[in-house]
Every structure is written in structure tokens, then in C-alpha cells.
């Protein structure tokens, strides 16, 4: 089962540790927030991704197994 890196944008405070530890997949934008390549991680990258997630001071980086498509529900519009 493939794994992907994802950021919790609410928790993220732009410390930038993840980009240091997983530069193959994460770069920082002009404000210091991570831009993550959401494609499945290569097997050798998983270890680095987990290390980056553990190093994040706000635990905002997540390494997740793919969710089943049925659960990947559309995000609703703010107007409700």
C-alpha cells in the first residue's frame, strides 16, 4: 500500500524542518510553508518522511496510507 506525505495547514507554523529532512518531496514557499509533492512516496523515501514528521515541532506533517476513494469526500464550499 502506497504512502503519501501531507501537511495539516492549520497546525503548520512554517518551521521548515520537513523541507530540510525530505527535500526530495518538500520545498518551501516564499512565506516558509511547505509545498508537498502529493504523489506516493518511493519506498526509500518513507523512512525519511517519517523522520521529518517526527521532527516537526507542531506535528503538522503526516505520512498517511492511501484512503479508500469512498471516504475521499468532496470538500464543501464555505458558503455552506
Amino acid at each position: 500500500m502506497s504512502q503519501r506525505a501531507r501537511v495539516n495547514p492549520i497546525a503548520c507554523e512554517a518551521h521548515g524542518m520537513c523541507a530540510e529532512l525530505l527535500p526530495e518531496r518538500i520545498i518551501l514557499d516564499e512565506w516558509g510553508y511547505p509545498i508537498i509533492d502529493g504523489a506516493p512516496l518511493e519506498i526509500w523515501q518513507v523512512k525519511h518522511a517519517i523522520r521529518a514528521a517526527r521532527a516537526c515541532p507542531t506535528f503538522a506533517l503526516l505520512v498517511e496510507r492511501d484512503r479508500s476513494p469512498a471516504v475521499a469526500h468532496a470538500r464543501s464550499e464555505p458558503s455552506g
Partner: protein
Amino acid sequence: MSALNSTLTEPLAPMAQQCVPALPRVLYGVPSRGALSLEEHVAIHGTLPSTGGRGRRRARERATMLIEEIERSGLLGHGGAAFPTAAKMRAVAGARRRAIVVVNAAEGEPASRKDRTLLETLPHLVLDGGVLAAEAVGADEVIVCICESADLGIESLTRAVEERVAAGSGHSPSLHLVVVPAHYVAGQESALVNYLNGGPARPTFTPPMPFEQGVKHRPTLVHNAETLAHIALIARHGAPWFRQLGTPSQPGSTLVTLSGPLTYPGVYEIEHGASLSSLVQAAGGTTARLRGALLGGYAGSWVHSDLLSGIALSNEHLAPYGASLGAGVVLLLSEHACPVAETVRLAGWLAGQSTRQCGPCAYGLDALAMTVLEIAGGIAQARAKQRVEHLASLTARRGACSHPDGAVNLILSSLETFEAEFAEHARHGPCDGCARPPEMPMPYRAVSQCGSRGTRR
């Protein structure tokens, strides 16, 4: 086509003459003043077709039947995302714990008045839908969330709930009314759930989605108020009746908030796929020449006036224009207005509506608003348009909710649609129209109770 004048400053106008005999559906029997009482509502629509029945098994079977009927009807959510209603209900019904139904009438969209109009005039139709949805997904509680600025809606809804309690509706789910802050993103599903759980009305990180774990950690069905009104009608008349109107991919009718330089702006009910010109005609025609139309709301897209005559109002027809019906907003801009100045105000407003929880949304929308302002003032650096596009790519799809996506969509759409005007401003600075009063409504300038400004640690 049925009309309901809902400009808040004017009293509600009586029903306009019907152009299509099949309409109005939702707005059928709308009173000229005040709200329809329970007695009047029952006289028009009949009693609630109960999905429950004797015995648990029977009740469960009938509940499944309602979800199946809604699926056959092809009803899509009317809150803006147009997500299939039955799929959402099925996800909640399949959960193990007892569910909760949330009626979403937060209506943070400044250009939309349909949900508050519905609750002001026909509260029982929405409550019927809430009760039916609750029975269908096995919920024992219906929470109606209404915007704090909708005074009349709160009043009529309170009375409607009292009427139902007095009428003694037996085993039906309990009804609660919750007033939510008037903030653009407060109506977002996860923000509502967070607020109902005692938190601020701000979106949360998902998953878990509300249908998995929502209010009180229970599976929660969040439906827009208008969606529930349609459910109340489908339960009574069936899916084939519902499909008599609309397009195959978007059946039925929809409420549209029509504003701009019109004789009778207001909330109208139209068939999906009806032409924009027929809607404008029903509103008594325009009082000025048009420069363009904003479709879908403040997260929507502009369509240039040259193209307006060919516009049909369904998502399928609007897709080639990069637009959608969203929450049913059609806002016409007169030719006197300066679209650049309107975009500057709108971009600033949307940036201000960010709850500043997510960095890319907070900083990205601020930077976008600033760049658009510089272009409008004629003081932008070279390649400002490329800068906007770069900022847009950094901002969209990087928040916990879709607010940055919608805001970016609107700004890019303005730049594209009014390219000539933006180029003119970039060269020569403000035009005469820039000093005119704004045409697009932008209420609650200060971020209200949800206390979101400056909370980034």
C-alpha cells in the same frame, strides 16, 4: 418562473405570475408577508410523509426507501459544492453510532439571500426536510444553524419550532436552533461542526469528515437548508416528478439570488438550465447596460457581458465558461461600475475573511489583494499579472477548507474577464468609475465573534 422579492429593505412582494406551470416548487404558497404557519403549510403540502413506521425493521426499510428515492431524483446539494445528496446521506446512515442532522442556513455568502428567505417565509418546508433526513439516516436530533444577521429568519424559525412542539409530533427527532456567527467561512461544514462542539466557527483539518465524526463525535449529516426543502418535496411527490424539470445531470429547480441593476432584484426559483435572459426578464429587465455577471458567488467566476445572452443556468452549461451555479448567486454588474475597483474591494474582503489559520491562505490572499490594488492604482511593477498568477498557484488548494481556492478563482476570473480594464488601470491608474460607490455587497467588514483575527501564534 416564480419570483419572491427579498431585498431586505422592501416588504416581500406577492407572488409574480407563473411562466412555467410546473414552477414554483419550493416557493409554492410563499406568503406576501411573514412566514407560513404550520397549519397553512400542511394545507398546502399535506402532512409529512413519515418514513418511520411501526417496528424498527419497517422504519429502517422505509428510511432506505427515501434515500433510494433521493438517489433516483439526482438531487445535488444546493450549498455550492453540488455534491450528490443521497451519497452523503448513505455515508451517514451506514455509520454505527446514532447520527445528527445539521441544517445549514449559515449563508455566509454576501450575495446570497436564498436560505434566509426560505427560513423567513417557509420554515416548515425546511424543517420537514430536516425531520425526513433525520429519519432516513437514523438521527434523533436536528440542529438548524442560522446566521446571526438573519433576524427575521431566526424569529420565524423559533416560532415554527414552537408550533411543532405545540402540535406534538410524537416520536420525531428533537429540533434545536443555533445562531452562528456571520462570517464567510462559518458555514463551511467542518466550521459549523466545530462551532456546535463548542469551538470557534472555523474550519478544521479533515479527515475525519463530519459524516464520520461530527457533532458530539457522532456521524453528522450537514445539508444546506434549500437541499432539505427539496427533500421534503421529493418525499411527497417522488423522483420522477422531481426530474420533470432541469437537465439530466442536474435535475429539478433551484433558488437563485439575483442582484444588480434590475427592476426587481430578489430570490427567484428557476429550472436548472433556464436561460439567464429569461431570469432577467422575470425580474423586470435591467435598468442599466451590463458589464458582466458574477455567477456562483464570491468564490465564483465572471462572465463578460458579450457572452451573457447565451448563458443557461446549470453547471453543465456553465462549465465551458469556467463558472458554476454555486449557491445560486447571479450578480449583474452595471456598465457604470469599474470592475477593477470592484475586484480590489472583493480581493481585500476575501483576504479579510480568511480565518488566518492556514499560512498560505492568510499570506497568499493578503499578497494577492495587495498586488491587485497596485495594478488598480497604476503603481504595479512590471509583470504584475505573472505575480498574481504565481501567488494564485501558491495559495489555491493549500488551506484546510476551500476558501483560498474560491478567492483565487474569483481574482483570476476577474483578471481574465476584464483584461482590457486591468491593462488600462495598470498604465494610467484609477478611472472615473473607481470613485463610484461599490455595487457589490460586502457586509460584516470586521470579523465577528469567531475571534479569528490575529490568532496565528
